[in-house]
């Protein structure tokens, strides 16, 4: 277990370095000048040149790369080119919002997706199966920003149950009010993915010999499904949850903007528009870190669910 973690963390460090270097190069290849964006339309060439010097953008690329990398190792990710505030501070201020939204929507996705998938599988080619398959297809093909607007019109404008501007203020009910619609929006997409995976995994497992023999021995149907089959069908579900967490964070960009929630999504859109190099670099560290950590966590979860999986 310890050796596994050390190996994976070592791998994570290499991945981080590769991603950082790639991001460093990419943000500088993409056309668009941060100095121009900061100073606006009316700035003359002299003012723009002065700003580039101030931001350190006129230094040789290799020097900029070294400054950036040595800073990153020391935990100093610089200051935002646009706001002048430390990158790490800006990211940490909104990170909890995105994590919280991702976790809650994932729980919603699992809570809806797993039972639905199982239900569809055990009723293969019957009405529940058809209904579930159509519903999950709908969930997968619906753009999240469209569903977000529909949720807002329905629950915030027509029924007036929730606010349009999602931002909590202290109390548990305020938290719930601000979380409900965005989490539901992302949770339903997640549920659609999980339903499909859970259904096919379940179908496969149900045809295994041990299920057949359990049934032949007279083990009750309910026990066969929930204890014997499901625990084995969960492995692909965990993989998909791990994999789609990245997609979920991506989808949260649109959800955060439509529901007006703070978060990494809003931050990265602003940073991209304004060519805020330092902010983009910092954000990529965070995104990579999240994906790498989730992968490690997924592997660890395999071992918990299936004792046959060895961490080595």
């Amino acid at each position, binding site marked *: 277990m310890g050796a596994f973690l050390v190996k994976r963390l070592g791998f994570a460090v290499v991945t981080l370095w590769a991603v950082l270097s790639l991001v460093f190069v990419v943000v500088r290849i993409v056309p668009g000048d941060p100095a121009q*964006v*900061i100073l606006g*339309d009316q700035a*003359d060439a002299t003012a723009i040149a002065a700003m580039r010097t101030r931001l350190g953008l006129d230094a040789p690329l290799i020097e900029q790369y070294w400054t950036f990398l040595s800073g990153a190792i020391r935990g100093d990710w610089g200051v935002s080119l646009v*706001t*002048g505030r430390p990158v790490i501070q800006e990211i940490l201020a909104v990170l909890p919002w995105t994590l919280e939204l991702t976790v809650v929507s994932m729980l919603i996705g699992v809570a809806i997706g797993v039972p639905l998938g199982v239900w569809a599988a055990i009723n293969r080619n019957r009405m529940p199966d058809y209904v579930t398959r159509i519903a999950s297809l709908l969930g997968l093909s619906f753009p999240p920003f469209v569903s977000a607007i529909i949720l807002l019109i329905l629950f*915030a404008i027509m029924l007036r149950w929730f*606010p349009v*501007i999602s931002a909590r203020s202290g109390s548990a009910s305020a938290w719930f009010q601000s979380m409900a619609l965005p989490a539901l929006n992302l949770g339903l997409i997640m549920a659609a993915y999980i339903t499909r995976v859970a259904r096919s995994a379940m179908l496969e497992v149900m045809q295994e010999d041990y299920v057949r023999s359990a049934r032949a021995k007279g083990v009750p149907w309910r026990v066969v499904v929930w204890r014997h089959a499901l625990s084995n069908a969960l492995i692909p579900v965990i993989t998909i949850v791990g994999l789609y967490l990245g997609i979920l964070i991506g989808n949260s960009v649109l959800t955060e903007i439509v529901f*007006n929630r703070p978060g990494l999504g809003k931050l990265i859109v602003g940073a991209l528009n304004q060519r805020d190099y330092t902010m983009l670099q910092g954000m990529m560290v965070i995104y990579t870190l999240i994906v790498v950590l989730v992968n490690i966590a997924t592997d660890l979860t395999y071992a918990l669910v299936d004792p046959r999986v060895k961490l080595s």
Partner: protein
Amino acid sequence: MKKTGLTIAAALAGALLGSPALAQKTVLTVGMQSTDAGVLDPHLNSGTPGKAMLQWMFNGLVRIKPGELSPEFMEPDLAESWTSSTDSKEWTFKLRQGVQCHHGYGEFTSEDAVYSLARAASKETSAFSSDYAAFDKVEAPDKYTVKITLKQAIPSLLGIVMNYHGGNMVCKKAAEELGKEGFAKKPVGTGPFMFQEYVPQQYAKLVANPNYFRGKPKLTEILYRFIPSDSSRDLAFQSGEIDMMLGRQEQAWVDRMNALPGVKVVAMGPAEMSMLHLNMSQPPLDNLKVRQAIAYAVDRNAIWQFRGKNISRPAVSVVPSGYLGTDEKAPLYPFDLAKSKALLAEAGFPNGVTIKAINTTLPSMLSFTEATQALLKRAGITLEIQPVEHATFHQQIRQDLSQVVHFQAARFPIADVYLSQFFHSRAIVKTPTAVTNFSHCKVADAEIDAARSETDKAKQLALWKTAQEKIIKEVCAIPVNEMMQLWAYKDSLDLGYDLKASLNLGPPVLETTRFTK
């Protein structure tokens, strides 16, 4: 008996709750189309979200009457009065006494004004330093007098000491104590509202300045919310979560908002003028006849219809309408398809020409260029559009990569600014002094320069008029139409003035602004 007492008490409570005095709203919530307001230092922020908010916290020495745009409405702000020498090189301002800086930073005096102007003129602390290039010295002969000496006369000294860009007055003690970064997090001015809190991506909270020199504001708080999604902003406005918001530049939006009960929609100035700059340094646009053919092929009225009658208007000159010095009856080329085709043939292109435009992907600007493309096609002019993301667009057009540049902009409302930035040879792109002269125009340099230091108002106007005529004749650019700034607010909000325009791009919120219910 007990029951009667309760009934009376309930009736009384009901009456009180229903009375306007208790129900009146005092918190104004504003929705802005952005994820953030950017740096909160008025000398550094040039974006719409920042400018709209900073104007509620800062004063200038003078201001344009709230709701108006033209410099002819200039009135006292922190200065009570001012005088200038006959050659317009020496200006003396008398300050109001007893004006207090926010958060207990003491009285605003001439020392603060001198400090503010030096700060605005420095490249290190200001994004607007070039506006102050003509400044020789700024002095404080006494506690309430500010004296500005210029190296040469400029078109509008008052325009750069008003509550706009570098003209915003900061409090010296606060700026020095907090430092550049600290001040940008907690700006300190003298305006009707004081900065209280900034929550990134969510809101900025301002509270009433109880010591404001024009009187204590009637509103207690302004909550300035950052809502980048147009649809969410509309829905939040509809659900009553925000009271005032920036709209989208679409006629359909105006119609939809107007259909809502209790809503006021204002199309205000400054209008952003859409102009097609033709790169005269490259063939076939180096041929005057080709440029004229393009000018004749653009139907301003058709584009006006297309963009929306209530939110746009046809351009009148190469300087937007309503600016000081705009030739409102400039001899623009009229729409004439036959003439356009004939000119192309005369120029040696009987089968038409193909020209290239790098264009931003911003929807309203892209749809404009696409509509123009359709119009030009009828005259045999093929406009190839290369859409690129907005920041890329800004970089590439400054690298002289586009033959036709559609630029949409508003400027300080004096003809000099538009003429100098878009049509003076100093401003030609890819030169060390480049600004936004994309067409390589240089036909009116003499008039633009002469008008800058001309102190005789009539002569100055005549010079600007000649400059506009020359630029139009040479077809450096084709002015097409002007797009207004759209704002919607609840009709229970009484701004306290008639909102026709706001140079800071957001409605001024004054000490008199209040909700009527």
